[in-house]
């Protein structure tokens, strides 16, 4: 009985998740600026969640040259930023990330910053950036709809 249920459920579950991915990939949506209102009301609501292995002294995130996050001395371990109107096109979406982290005394000098693109009903897409020798990060992260995590 249990085996029969599994045999029936597994292909269905695969089909549903494939449909969801195809739907996202087929969305004919040009990249829009963060401030621009969405032309597609049914588009998923996207947001960024950012957390670090060390204290964040400064964090700046830009999308197409426009500021998404600009904060200093963030006390909480993670911070989120809504991205109203932004959709994830097949070509992907890119963010410029600039940060300085301060590892706790005795901790590894190399700290990391995780940047997640969160969309309702989908697995978060995650990218990790490592600090340079001076504890700084200045790099881009790119999210593609068909990649669940970075290579």
């Amino acid at each position, binding site marked *: 009985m249990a085996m029969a249920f599994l045999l029936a459920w597994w292909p269905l579950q695969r089909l549903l998740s494939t449909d969801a991915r195809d739907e996202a990939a087929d969305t004919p949506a040009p*990249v829009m600026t963060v401030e621009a209102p969405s032309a597609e009301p049914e588009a998923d609501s996207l947001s960024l969640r950012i957390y670090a292995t060390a204290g964040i002294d400064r964090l700046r995130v*830009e*999308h*197409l*040259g426009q500021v998404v996050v600009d904060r200093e001395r963030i006390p909480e371990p993670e911070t989120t930023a809504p991205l109203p109107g932004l959709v994830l096109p097949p070509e992907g979406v890119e963010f410029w990330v600039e940060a300085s982290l301060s590892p706790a005394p005795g901790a590894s000098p190399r700290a990391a910053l995780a940047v997640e693109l969160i969309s309702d009903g989908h697995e978060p897409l995650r990218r990790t950036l490592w600090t340079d020798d001076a504890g700084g990060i200045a790099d881009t992260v790119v999210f593609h709809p068909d990649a669940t995590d970075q290579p």
Partner: protein
Amino acid sequence: MNTQPLPRRSLSLWFQVVVACALWGAGPTAVRAELKVATLHPLMTDLAKQVGGSHVSVTGLMSPGENIHQFSPSSSDMAAARSADVVLASGKGLETYLPRLRSTLGSATRIVEAGSAVPSIKISAKDALFVCCPQHAVGGLDPHWWHSISGMKKAATFVGKEFGKADPANAKAYQANAAAYGQRLDALSAWAKRELSRVPRSGRVLVTGHAAFAYFCKEFGFRSLPVAGLSEESVGSQYLAEAIAQIQKNGVRTIFPEQGNNTRAISSVAKSASVGLGRALIADGSASEATTYEAFIRHNIGAIAAGLGGGAS
């Protein structure tokens, strides 16, 4: 008891004077000990200076602004190369005369191909019409590797090691210079990424004259679309029509001429396709107004970000 340090100090002073005199007398010898480097590409001249620092004297056989695809060493160039300890070439088949030069110089001169440290990109069939010259045809190596900043960093490390082999006494200095230059290239790369982050991923199609930007496109997530080649003769009307169709199909809004290459054809394409004309790019790394690698990269990235970027800087 307390007179002991004085003779020691005097002895030390005397020793310093002797050493200084010896070095003074050895002046010409010290000059001869510097590494003589001849370069075959303007960007290699800058690379040699960055990595060699004060330990090398660099002679650029090709001046900035010369056409790298038409350069062939003259007899005086050959003489300069013969008197060098190291000849620094760009490599990847760019210097088609290199085998001849190698046989002329013999084994006494070390020929270093900087590009050999950089992973190659082969010329694809779609770019075959618009390559720089017949030697760089389909399946051949794309020689324009210096459009990749990470590639230049690899090349700097490699050249530092090669200089060290030619001049072991200063090997550590060359490696240190290469490492310091690598850090400056990291900063340049970060600047480039930030500038180009203004260009939407969906709009990253780089339309240029000849197929010279594959390394740039790979590094920064662009698609390369060369449409004109290097000479007016290389493009027929059917190819221009195809180029225009490709530009319109990809939603391109700005295309880029190249300094010194086929600007009339690109202007014609822009007009026919009703797209804008960006600032002229330096495709071959040789331009009189950009004599350093950093200036070359800043010129091109600035032009591309301005032409294709939508957001504020």
